[in-house]
């Protein structure tokens, strides 16, 4: 029996910083191979200097997002079969974020914008008080059901056209986080948060292109969250609270 040639993938991987370029590796094709498997194989077997980021490998931590064949994706749960063109893969760091090295981008601004959007909880109670309950079937709790599932992978941020045009724009993830907190009846900085997410760098800059919603690996809709913030800020202006 003649030995069949082992099928291989031609993988173009971004190397270096903003001024870098693609380097191509030949990688053995395997069944059920994920894009993260491919990157890991390159780093462990072909070039140990390749930098990339991952942690959980099961779609929970949000650290392995990269640009795969032109689209931002979570690589740990992206099967090569789903995204391959011919036998070629192109893997680059996320767009709209500064490149540190190879496939690793600097997420600082992404998380800073979460803070700018007041994407944190401020309650009134202290550790001496009893727990404050949120009714699971209340309308605000239900409307935050989806938004709270965000894993902060940055795929939406990398896919957003508005960030490309307006670097100050808070972006889908930060606004989605703000929306989930705007639905939290225990939180008592609602006015401050609405002021933080309104304006030219906030929810009103969103063009509803819905790239974030289309690309979100958790199939959430930051667009819907942003629309919710637009409604809340509009209501606040009408009431004279903003």
């Amino acid at each position, binding site marked *: 029996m003649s030995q069949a040639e082992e099928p291989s993938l031609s993988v173009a991987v971004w190397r270096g910083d903003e001024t870098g370029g693609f380097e191509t590796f030949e990688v053995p094709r395997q069944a059920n191979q994920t894009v993260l498997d491919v990157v890991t194989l390159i780093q462990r077997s072909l070039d140990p200097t390749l930098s990339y980021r991952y942690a959980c490998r099961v779609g929970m931590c949000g650290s392995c997002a990269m640009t795969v064949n032109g689209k931002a994706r979570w690589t740990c749960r992206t099967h090569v079969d789903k995204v391959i063109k011919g036998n070629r893969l192109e893997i680059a760091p996320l767009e709209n974020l500064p490149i540190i090295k190879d496939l690793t981008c600097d997420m600082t601004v992404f998380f800073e914008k979460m803070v700018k959007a007041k994407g944190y909880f401020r309650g009134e109670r202290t550790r001496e008080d009893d727990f404050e309950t949120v009714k699971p079937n209340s309308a605000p709790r239900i409307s935050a059901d989806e938004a709270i599932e965000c894993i902060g992978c940055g795929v939406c941020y990398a896919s957003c056209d*508005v960030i490309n045009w307006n670097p100050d724009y808070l972006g889908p993830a930060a606004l989605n986080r703000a929306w989930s907190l705007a639905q939290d009846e225990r939180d008592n900085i609602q006015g401050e948060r609405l002021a933080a997410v*309104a*304006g*030219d760098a906030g929810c*009103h*800059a969103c063009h509803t292109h819905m790239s974030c919603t289309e690309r979100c690996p958790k199939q959430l809709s930051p667009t819907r969250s942003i629309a919710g913030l637009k409604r809340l800020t*509009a209501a*606040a*202006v009408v009431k004279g609270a*903003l």
Partner: protein
Amino acid sequence: MNIGLVTRLWIWQRISGAFLGLFVLVHLMTIIHAIQGGLSASEILGRTQGNVAWLMFYGSFVLASAVHAPIGMRNVLGEMLGWRGRSLDWAMAAFAVALIVLGARATWGVYA
């Protein structure tokens, strides 16, 4: 900060956009209907001159456009040219005034 202003502009753009949707539809249907029988310019003017309903309609159309277009242009110029701040806001206010003046002149032209 311009938070309140931007939110108000957003609200006004939505309201004016809703009206424009209706106005554009009526405008296009009128054009298509009017040319069916081969109306001449003088025949059209014969119908619009002294007609307060058309004056009100196109007057409102001009106002909605003068609200809607500068707000949209403000976003486009900010994103495409990086022009932001007070100078842009004043320029867009001037654009709104220009649209009102030019639109009112045209509307009055077919009414008077």
